């Protein structure tokens, strides 16, 4: 087997795993193989979480004309270490009236559910922990467990703010799951498969230098934007951070958590964000494939993480800019804008498939999405009489 060094680099982790698994008896090999994948996920993504917290704080800082953390370690990169020590040494406060068992289990369940989602994410060529046939379905099923964890946290704290936060969170997550799944359905239709590995594989080809990413079609772009908006809401990130809107309900469902449990919630939230960004990358941004055909020499896993970081940067950017929505507006947006748009994207994806290649299908698909967008947007704003105003002046 003579492989080019580039390909070797691309597959270095796969080969490493094979090599390690080779040392154990054949009977134990499947178990060890999955264990290795699990360990990799458990090591990698929390590390990414740590890194992201610094990145987020520094990025936000720069947007706000300040430095962000810069005292611990070079450029403040060791800040998460200090934060971790702090949260570990903090007193773990459990309210007296709390339901102790449920209160304890909620953060664990949240983190566990978030970790489970990574099983089906192909982070590189041949690099998915499991190639499930119903991978996308699995992803959403596991994501649904997070809602339960949030409810448990909010209810068990026996605090009204927690309960309000949990109610908000669940209502929001359920509402945005619909456009989230619908917009991924367009991709599933186009790819003809529910398997994440398969979907990523479908997008790995090139026409000229351009990749076959679904985002590079009108319906794909719209679907991607819808998916990301829904993902922001799913992960409770600004501007959809109502469940933990600190200016309204303190910290929402984790008001009564402190110390390491609080850190676990934090971890769970970020893991959810990475996972859903990972799915977005897999579905729309070609997974691990390079953006141009001449860049394929860069290892696939680098591409995946580069895209992941880029998406996280967008999350941070939005957080640094936007104020929060209100609950009813959030719901209106989900049901009156996101849902019809997601359905249209599906239809548009079907049309795209059945129209012949050429300019025509670009125009048809674009119009199919752009016109309703403008109309729905106008309806959303002017239905509530929202717009810029002019003011009069007294001399």
């Amino acid at each position: 087997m003579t492989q080019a060094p580039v390909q070797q680099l691309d597959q270095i982790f796969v080969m490493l795993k094979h090599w390690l698994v080779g040392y154990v008896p054949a009977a134990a090999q499947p178990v060890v193989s999955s264990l290795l994948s699990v360990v990799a996920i458990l090591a990698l993504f929390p590390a990414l979480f740590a890194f992201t917290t610094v990145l987020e704080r520094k990025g936000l800082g720069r947007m706000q004309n300040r430095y962000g953390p810069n005292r611990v370690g070079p450029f403040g990169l060791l800040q998460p270490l200090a934060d971790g020590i702090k949260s570990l040494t903090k007193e773990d406060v459990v309210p007296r009236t709390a339901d102790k068992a449920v209160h304890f289990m909620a953060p664990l369940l949240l983190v566990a559910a978030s970790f489970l989602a990574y099983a089906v994410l192909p982070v590189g060529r041949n690099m998915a922990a499991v190639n499930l046939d119903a991978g996308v379905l699995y992803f959403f099923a596991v994501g649904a467990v997070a809602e339960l964890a949030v409810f448990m946290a909010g209810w068990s704290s026996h605090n009204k703010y927690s309960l309000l936060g949990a109610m908000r969170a669940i209502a929001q997550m359920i509402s945005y799951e619909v456009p989230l799944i619908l917009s991924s359905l367009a991709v599933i239709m186009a790819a003809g498969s529910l398997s994440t590995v398969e979907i990523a594989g479908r997008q790995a080809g090139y026409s000229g230098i351009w990749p076959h990413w679904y985002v590079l079609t009108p319906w794909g772009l719209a679907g991607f934007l819808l998916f990301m908006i829904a993902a922001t809401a799913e992960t409770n990130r600004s501007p959809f951070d109502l469940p933990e809107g600190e200016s309204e309900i303190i910290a929402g469902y984790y008001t009564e958590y402190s110390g390491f449990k609080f850190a676990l919630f934090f971890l769970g939230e970020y893991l959810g964000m990475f996972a859903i960004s990972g799915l977005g990358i897999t579905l729309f941004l070609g997974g691990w494939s390079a953006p141009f055909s001449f860049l394929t020499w860069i290892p696939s896993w680098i591409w995946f993480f580069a895209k992941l970081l880029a998406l996280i940067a967008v999350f941070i950017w939005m957080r640094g800019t936007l104020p929060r929505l209100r609950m009813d507006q959030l719901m209106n947006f989900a049901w009156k804008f996101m849902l019809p748009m997601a359905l249209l994207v599906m239809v548009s994806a079907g049309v795209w498939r059945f129209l012949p290649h050429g300019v025509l299908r670009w125009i048809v698909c674009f119009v199919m999405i752009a016109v309703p967008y403008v109309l729905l947007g106008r309806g959303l704003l002017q239905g509530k009489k929202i717009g810029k105003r002019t003011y009069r002046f007294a001399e």
Partner: protein
Amino acid sequence: MLGEGIVKGLAETARNFLGSFVDEERLTTVEYPEERLPQAEAARNFPFLIYDGDDAEKGLRCVACQICEKECPPRCIHIEKSKDKKPDYVGKQQFYPAVFDIDVSVCMSCQICVEVCPFEAIRMDTQFELSTDDRFGGLLWTKAELAKTNEYYHSIHPTEAGETDARLDEEKAKVAAKAKPAEAEMQAKA
């Protein structure tokens, strides 16, 4: 169109984000213990007592008139008048404060004491790194801690100190001028 304002806002934060790497204006943070801004000359924090010469006891300008004690809005000054007298800067016999305490935990840095002092004896310091682990004793400053030289005053508020000195010199000259005829008279009498 929906999203227009949001995109504009995003552009603005992006501009600030990128600007923070190139533009001094967009990254205003001063990293405090290492970097310090120059202090404004008018800056004020807590009061101190000025003395002339080297001896804090002898050169203290305060004559224990207790005006500042009365006028101090939060009443953080405590003065006990001396029994004996000592000469002030013009040589006149004056009382001096046997005790002069300021409770800086109460002081609100308002500068009223400075304004009402007719003897140019109390001024505002600019020192602000004053943390202490003694909540009561450490924040009650006695005469010894409060007394600072006129040179120190010049170093923190040069303009104001110059004006003060000029005023004092003028007064000294006046007293001297008054004293001279008196002396001459004395001599004439003699």
